[in-house]
């Protein structure tokens, strides 16, 4: 009888002792994970800057942040050494974009073509999230812009000020699929007060833009818009397509790319891109973005 009990004690010890030894590290961490559930987190940094290339990205300026951008598009690449492969000819545009709140960004731009001014706003409606119980799979923003051509009388614009306005309204639906890969689609409505006799004033378009991060500071980006403008117009228009790199250097983001559009304002990029990539209508361009200040977190 005594022997039997001893045996049972030994077995019990063998069974219990390792349990209390292993009970340490991981079980304590498991208990902590059980007690403190991870909170839902906003998915951020879907794109490197507020533009994919020409298209608006889902990114915005946070409260108090100011983005100063300089955008250039050069001449056709095949112009040869006399025109320095297009670099002698430049159209440019610069803009300021500011975050009034964390969900509202406003901007102004000025471009040298038609002395175009424009004002824009971007509303961050829904943000992608992860880690919580209920997560949003996508982020949605609404972008709206109007442009005004202030050039004195030209072949296109005459006295009537109303003719000089054009508008873009656009939803941006984006998802960061992995740390490196993000994609967005842009259902867009463009209205031009003035269009040529055989062109439409209203144009619907669907854009797609993406980014693939090659290294932590270098990304590959692309975008394309399908626009439903007529293919039988006197002036030929093409769907805008661009491919390029985002390079981040601490304070600045450089975007270097090839595009078939010399335009930089949405309504013109989408409705009035004239570069035919099959006929050397390819241009080199860059955007430089410098972001200043901004308090993201109110103390």
């Amino acid at each position, binding site marked *: 009888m005594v022997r039997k*009990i001893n045996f*049972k*004690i030994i077995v*019990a*010890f063998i069974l*219990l002792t390792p*349990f*209390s030894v292993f*009970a*340490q*590290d991981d079980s*304590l*961490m498991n*208990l*902590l*994970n059980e*007690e*403190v559930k*991870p*909170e839902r*987190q906003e998915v*951020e*940094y879907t794109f490197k800057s507020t533009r994919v290339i020409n298209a608006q990205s889902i990114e915005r300026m*946070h409260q108090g*942040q100011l983005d100063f951008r300089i955008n250039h598009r050069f001449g056709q690449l095949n112009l040869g050494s006399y025109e320095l492969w297009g670099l002698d000819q430049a159209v440019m545009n610069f803009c300021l974009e500011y975050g009034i709140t964390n969900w509202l960004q406003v901007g102004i731009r000025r471009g040298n073509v038609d002395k175009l001014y424009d004002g824009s706003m971007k509303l961050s409606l829904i943000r992608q999230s992860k880690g919580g119980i209920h997560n949003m799979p996508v982020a949605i923003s609404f972008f709206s812009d109007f442009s005004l051509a202030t050039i004195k009388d030209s072949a296109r614009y005459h006295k009537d000020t109303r003719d000089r306005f054009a508008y873009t309204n656009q939803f941006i639906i984006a998802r960061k699929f992995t*740390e490196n890969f993000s994609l967005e689609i842009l259902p867009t409505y463009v209205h031009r007060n003035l269009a040529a006799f055989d062109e439409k004033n209203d144009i619907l378009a669907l854009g797609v833009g993406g980014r693939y991060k090659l290294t*932590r*500071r270098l990304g590959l980006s692309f975008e394309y818009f399908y626009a439903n403008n007529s293919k039988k117009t006197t002036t030929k228009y093409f769907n805008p397509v661009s491919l390029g790199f985002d390079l*981040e250097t*601490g*304070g600045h983001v450089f975007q270097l790319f090839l595009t078939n559009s010399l335009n930089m304002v949405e309504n013109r990029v989408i409705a009035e891109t004239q570069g035919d990539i099959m006929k050397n209508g390819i241009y080199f361009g860059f955007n430089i973005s410098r*972001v200043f*200040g*901004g*308090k*993201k*977190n109110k103390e």
Partner: protein
Amino acid sequence: MKKVIVISGLVFLACSSLFAQKYICKDGNVHLLSKTAMLTIDGKNNKASSILDSKTGDLVVQLQVRGFKFPEALLEEHFNENYMQSGTFPKADFKGKIANIATVNFAKDGEYPIDIVGKLTIHGETRDIKKKGKLVIKGGKVEGTSAMNISLANYKVKIEESYKDRIDDNVALTMDLKYELYQAK
């Protein structure tokens, strides 16, 4: 009869180890500071969580790297995107123990210096560490503090040559964890 005593004794022992006094902290503060002449990086995380077993001295601490908040949005972006890669390595944690837990009397108010020994994981890299800290017991409440310096290179957080005059390899971490008694649900 003897058998019953032995078994109940064992059950008691097993239970007592299950119901060892544990302390939990759900909103601890961790502060990181890196200072150079050109740039001050000053981040605060107030969602660090921890459990301390007062009997065995076992200690676990963890936090979400994304939870660090910086005064400037761009700084926060670069911290997450370029250096900590918090999308790939969302958590930082510590698993180990207070080596001299026996010298801490949880029933008596006072300040107790502690030796923290264990494994610290940052940026997906785990290193053995041995640091000093302090436990303050006051009216049944436990507050743990520790200040330590860590080397970024040691955790494979890469600082490019051209940024080395702005970002110091040495980062000061200060922890302040206020524990309360853990009640099992």
